[in-house]
């Protein structure tokens, strides 16, 4: 259940991307932080790796986003997880990702 601190860079100032920002704010797994110039800090708190992956893809697809930078990755405690059975598949069910920015 990763927590990551990301930096989104838009092609223009953040203020000119209200729709994308609104989309970000409507995604429960995303917390929007400080914005400055054309960059905005967000925290993604996802429920599983696949969920995280989906959010990542959605962020990249967000209109105006030119790059998604990783500033921070939170790992989880191995001891608190059920042992992995050699499968690379995430055990948890896929989560629905809001259709970010795709109207």
């Amino acid at each position, binding site marked *: 259940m990763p927590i990551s601190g990301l930096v989104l860079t838009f092609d223009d100032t953040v203020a000119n991307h209200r729709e994308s920002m609104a989309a970000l704010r*409507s995604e429960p797994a995303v917390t929007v932080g400080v914005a400055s110039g054309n960059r905005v800090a967000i925290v993604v708190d996802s429920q599983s790796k696949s969920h995280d992956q989906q959010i990542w893809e959605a962020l990249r697809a967000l209109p105006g986003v030119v790059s998604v930078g990783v500033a921070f990755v939170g790992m989880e405690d191995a001891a608190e997880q059920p042992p*992995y059975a050699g499968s690379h598949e995430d055990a948890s069910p896929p989560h629905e990702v809001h259709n970010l920015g795709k109207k």
Partner: protein
Amino acid sequence: MNETGQRPVEPIVGEPDSELDSAGRITTLALASLMAFAVIGYFVGLADGVPQPSGIDSEPLLKGTHHPAKADSKVVAAVTYSEISNVPMGPSVAWQAIPKSLPKSAHEVQPYDLFAEIKPSESDKEKSNFVRASRRAFNGAPPVIPHTVENTNDAACYSCHSNGMRMEGLKASVMSHGFLANCLQCHAPPPPKPFEKIDSSVRSRFVGLQAPKAGERAFPGAPPTIPHSQWMRENCHACHGGPNGWAGMESSHPWRTNCTQCHAPSATLDQAIPAQGLSMLPPIENSTRE
């Protein structure tokens, strides 16, 4: 005390012996100078307790062993200024021969292969850990200097420690941090030569933080987290890779350079978490979700 430390050039001038192999020559020279010192020490011992100044006088240690340099091999004959342009100057043959005669570094014997398969050995790691711990008061302390340092400046330190080097059984560690002036500000040298024999042991109950054995893995096969502070250890390859790292601690993938991409450092050890929340950040509880 080996007095030759004061004038390293002299024995080489005095004892050219082409038949000896290089290592043998050095041993011979070291022995000769040791013997020289022993002889002096013997006479000093017999004298009136008023030994002659040593290490500072300008005369050779042993009378009669100081041969003038052979002009053909060591010294370019003096010429007049007008002749200089026609005379090959530069290092003499003997001087050029010296580096060739030095023992080869491991690197030269076996060139470093970045892509060679590496299987770190647990016993090597244990040994390396032991050596490292013996030079630190606690994990994270700047290591003390295990070799003599005399009137040495920073440039001398960098010449071996910037990229590290190996020569026969010796290894100069790579600096794990960037250029910083005044090396001895942080790295304590061994006692000055005249005071080597003085007992410097202290009685202390200080027990330093131990070096971690390994980073933690989220699951088998996951990249381990970095179990130590990265401060002053920005260059991971200083210990974990390259030709001059620590045996047993090598990275199995030294060609990969962006280490923290996969290996998580510790925010606590790195003092990365501010003591107070940054005022510019919204508190998590009142996030800006709509």
